[in-house]
């Protein structure tokens, strides 16, 4: 394992310190407990939006703190959800009097820790609501399981929900937007190589030189099936089919197509994936009206990609286009 780190125990602390040094114009950082907040938090009268989760998925979530997106992000240890303390502290700091929304990826640890923090915040008189993000079609959904995972679609939920809060929606309305985005976005990923968690020092799983993992999770959790490497176009077809069937997406839909890099995949490959995905959608009469390509929800240095498709309407499109100013996503200002 070769990594540009010092003591593995200090990875998150030092990375957050670097983030603060680089982006002091956009964020301020609390070091104990650790969280990243908008430099102008709390914004009076605005619903505060807090997200968070294990580290190792950067720029998710810290890279999305700022005007028009998140008010705070709470990074846990690598691939481990944060504890309630920093979530509570972040919730207090961003509360501008209009309540706080927790955007939580659907993992037992994240759900439980955010739940505890929300209980504590409520006890202090802060109105807190949570929306659970579960866009991953690789996992069968069922009342009897932990349900689907929250993966790259989270970025879209955070951007669009953040825009709704920024325009002044009240807490119920912001919750409704978040639920709407989550209900209309579907994602599926593939891994070509595993990642190595710093403190573990060993790959999270092992793939042969000619194997790929279809339906991989963002923590290196095994996916749907392990198959032999195929041409990019064939892989894209495998990822896209269950996504399109699931909602389902149909001819006439306008969509945002998001090709996400898992961290170790070169940009040329992401664009090759985008090309094929756009082609398939066009064949089905689905129009790509917005797009996003890049490393936005990563799994450390894992090579691979995920494809997310979000069904747009006028409201979601204009919220997507609204100005945003964060370290990792910025336009309009």
């Amino acid at each position, binding site marked *: 394992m070769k990594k540009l780190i010092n003591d593995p125990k200090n990875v998150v602390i030092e990375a957050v310190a670097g983030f603060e040094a680089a982006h002091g114009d956009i964020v301020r950082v609390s070091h104990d407990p650790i969280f990243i907040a908008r430099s102008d938090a709390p914004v009076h009268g605005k619903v505060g939006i807090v997200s968070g989760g*294990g580290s190792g998925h950067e720029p998710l979530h810290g890279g999305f703190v700022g005007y028009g997106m998140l008010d705070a992000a709470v990074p*846990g*240890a*690598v*691939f*481990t*959800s*944060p*504890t*309630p*303390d920093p979530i509570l502290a972040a919730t207090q700091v961003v509360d501008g009097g209009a309540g706080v929304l927790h955007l939580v990826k659907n*993992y*037992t*640890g994240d759900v*439980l*820790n955010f*739940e*505890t923090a929300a209980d504590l915040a409520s006890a202090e008189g802060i109105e807190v609501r949570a929306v659970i993000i579960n866009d991953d079609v*690789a*996992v*069968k959904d069922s009342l*009897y*399981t*932990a349900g689907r*995972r929250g993966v790259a679609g989270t970025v879209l939920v955070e951007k669009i929900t953040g825009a709704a809060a920024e325009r002044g929606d009240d807490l119920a309305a912001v919750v409704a937007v978040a639920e709407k985005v989550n209900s209309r976005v579907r994602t599926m990923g593939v891994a070509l190589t595993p990642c190595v*968690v710093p*403190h*573990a020092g*060993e790959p*999270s*799983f092992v793939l042969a030189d000619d194997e790929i993992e279809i339906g991989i*999770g963002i*923590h*290196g*959790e*095994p*996916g749907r099936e392990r198959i032999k490497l195929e041409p990019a176009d064939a892989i894209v077809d495998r990822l896209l089919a269950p996504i399109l069937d699931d909602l389902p997406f149909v001819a006439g839909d306008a969509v945002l197509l998001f090709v996400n890099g898992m961290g170790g995949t070169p940009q040329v490959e992401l664009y090759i994936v985008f090309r094929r995905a756009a082609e398939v959608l066009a064949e089905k009469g689905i129009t790509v009206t917005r797009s996003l390509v890049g490393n936005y929800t990563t799994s450390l240095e894992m090579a691979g990609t995920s494809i997310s498709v979000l069904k747009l309407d006028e409201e979601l499109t204009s919220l997507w286009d609204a100005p945003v100013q964060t370290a990792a996503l910025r336009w309009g200002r």
Partner: protein
Amino acid sequence: LTLDAAWTVGWIRRSAEVLAAERAALNTLDRDIGDGDHGENMDRGFQAVLSKLNDLVDESTPGAVLKLVATTLISTVGGAAGPLYGTAFLKAAGAVGSARCLDAAALVALLTAARDGIVLRGKAEEGDKTMIDAWTPAVNAAAAAQAAGSAVDEVLLIAADAAASGAQATEPLIARKGRASYLGERAIGHRDPGAQSTSLLLRAAADVGRA
């Protein structure tokens, strides 16, 4: 054997020792069917507990120790295990109240409350391939032994044995909760890391009890 505050502290110290020793093994179990951090999470939490234990005042009670363990685990472990074990110790503390010494009945109440706390938070049932599959057999065996008049050290031993069998019995299961539930049939053949850490914790209790 007296289950007083000193015993409780001894149990937790021994647990911290064992979890540190088994850290890599728990990570490996979790890597197979989860995300590979369970040993890391437990070790981080119990090391934090260790440094907190020194702050305890002398005339402490088992309940006070358990409460300190609970709040420390909640604020340092994270992941699924943090809130689940945290709640377990919190409910256990509640169950033993301010008693200075626990008899067999109190011990069973402690274990039952811990298990119930985990079910309350995590909503897992037996057979879902979670730590509950170690807790519930332990609680049942302890309750039966106590009803049959066993002494506390025997109850502890019986609970630890039942937890160990329970952990082992998770191996052939398909998971319905936690990360392993994403795997479907591919979880078969692997032991649940949380069930294993539960087994280690209860074994530590029995070992300290015997010492």
